[in-house]
């Protein structure tokens, strides 16, 4: 089968610092990594490659530097990578990103299965997967926690929803977004790293894709960020010592009082 994995390069979350003055993110010096939640999608694809036989292509949209993310997943075992990159794509919201990625998938002549992480840790919307599916007019299952069976033209999955796990049978081609439970990502191998270094990663610009110039990038994006600010609710913790048993009892009293005051009981 043919599998496409959509991956995004993001700043390392643990390293993100806020500029207290301006309330903006300090990106300088922050390492760029593969969106950790996409690694679960990559692993799910590689597991299918092992059990079913599959050709796995990773597609990323981003600045030229995002080629590094593609090399990282090739080092894990992905067969090929394509970078979708053009200053014309800059400022894309999820709608324009889904639209552009769908065009890239079409240029690859589609796939039996498209896999995505549940969301990216920077934008944190979880919208690009379902929107890409919609632009391709494919069925989509989100929050997939296991791939239970693959048969000719169908896939069976479980998806994690609020109250439990829902089982779905989906006819292929389809797009699924996965959560951590689906698989534990493998580490890159030495051979993989070597292959990744030498891999030829084509860069597709707007000219290479069948896209309407009015629907890409900032201009093509329906939404606009108009303001960024710091949440005001700077909490000030009341420190309650409970370092021995009698203190613990007093602390418990204080906590119950706190909960009662705030109507939490």
């Amino acid at each position: 089968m043919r599998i496409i994995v959509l991956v995004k390069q993001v700043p390392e979350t643990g390293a993100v610092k806020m500029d207290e003055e301006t309330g903006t993110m300090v990106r300088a010096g922050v390492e760029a990594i593969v969106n950790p939640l996409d690694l679960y999608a990559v692993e799910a694809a590689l597991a299918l490659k092992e059990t079913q036989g599959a050709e796995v292509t990773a597609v990323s949209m981003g600045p030229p530097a995002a080629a590094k993310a593609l090399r990282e997943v090739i080092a894990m075992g992905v067969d090929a990578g394509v970078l979708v990159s053009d200053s014309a794509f800059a400022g894309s919201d999820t709608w324009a990103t889904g639209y552009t990625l769908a065009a890239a998938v079409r240029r690859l002549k589609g796939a039996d299965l498209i896999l995505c992480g549940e969301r990216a840790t920077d934008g944190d919307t979880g919208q690009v997967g379902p929107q890409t599916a919609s632009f391709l007019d494919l069925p989509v299952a989100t929050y997939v926690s296991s791939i239970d069976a693959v048969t000719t033209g169908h896939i069976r999955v479980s998806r994690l929803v609020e109250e439990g796990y829902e089982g779905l049978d989906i006819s292929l081609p389809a797009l699924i977004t996965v959560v951590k439970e689906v698989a534990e990502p493998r580490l890159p191998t030495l051979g993989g790293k070597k292959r990744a270094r030498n891999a030829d990663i084509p860069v597709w610009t707007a000219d290479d894709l069948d896209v309407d110039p009015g629907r890409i990038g900032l201009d093509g994006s329906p939404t606009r960020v108009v303001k960024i600010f710091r949440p005001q609710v700077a909490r000030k913790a009341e420190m309650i010592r409970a370092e021995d048993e009698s203190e613990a009892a007093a602390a418990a009293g204080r906590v119950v009082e706190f909960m009662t005051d705030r109507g939490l009981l």
Partner: protein
Amino acid sequence: MSAEAAGIWILAESSSSALTRVSFELLTRGVELAAKRSAQLTALVIGHDLDKAGLNRLTACGADRVIAVEAPALEHFLVEPYAAVMLKMIEKHRPEVIIAGATSLGRTLMPYVAAKADAGLTADCTILDIDRDTGNLLQTRPAIGGNILATIKTPRHRPQMATVRPHSAPPAEPREGRTGEIIRISPPDELLSSRMRRTGFKREESDHPLQDAETVVVVGRGIGRKENIPVAAELADALGAALGATRDVVDRGWLSYPHQVGLSGKTITPKLYIGLGVSGSIQHLAGMQTSQNIIAVNIDPDAQIFRVADAAIVGDLFDVVPALLARARAMGVADG
């Protein structure tokens, strides 16, 4: 096209034909927006055999109109028929705003529809406002793990769509005597086809789904070992709370993945979060720092979790939890 779009819509959700809590939270938002814009408020419900009392409750809680689209094929959420129905309704009624819960349903259906409807969509909003004159929806959402808030507008496209974080508004209450129009529609078959089929459902063993819970007790690695989980579970039971976990606890197999809170788990906004032996890593905070009240118990006075806490108890959780249980029971505010 924007000139003609009018009306505020909410997407009410049903589960086994009963409406879920988030539907009423959305009404609270919808009532505010509709009043400000002097617009009609419509609740759209998609399902099967919807309970009449539930639909009436939507009007009693503020909907001027309820549109219930019902068919056996719509009993459970399947993205294609649900999207087809919604797109048909958008085409017919041209709402200016559509909001839905940032639930597993809303976060799947809304992007699928927005792509096809040429609509802007903002995820997981916690604050909504509307410009009285232009009708521009001001959608504010936490970003970068809750460290900043971003306000987003959709100036040229209609409808303006947003998903709203559950528990970020109180549910609307019914007003006696308040009624509205209820329209029940059976959609034509061509809207109901699906390339996906539901094969079953396995309910989580816990009684309290994490994302719906008003109180969540979260277990961190400070609990020490799997055998100690009942210490936290007993507190959760007594408070009628759901049990959550950090990734370290899940990775060790002490609690299952559906309990995980954080970046690679669930995002929760309960009224009360109680962390036991949780350090407060940035990835964990990303999933819980918008909780309304945060109590943390940690042996380390410098634990990061205390930075976001309202009450910081510095001590051994194995002393504090039993004391807390005893106290709460003595006061008759906890079960057991």
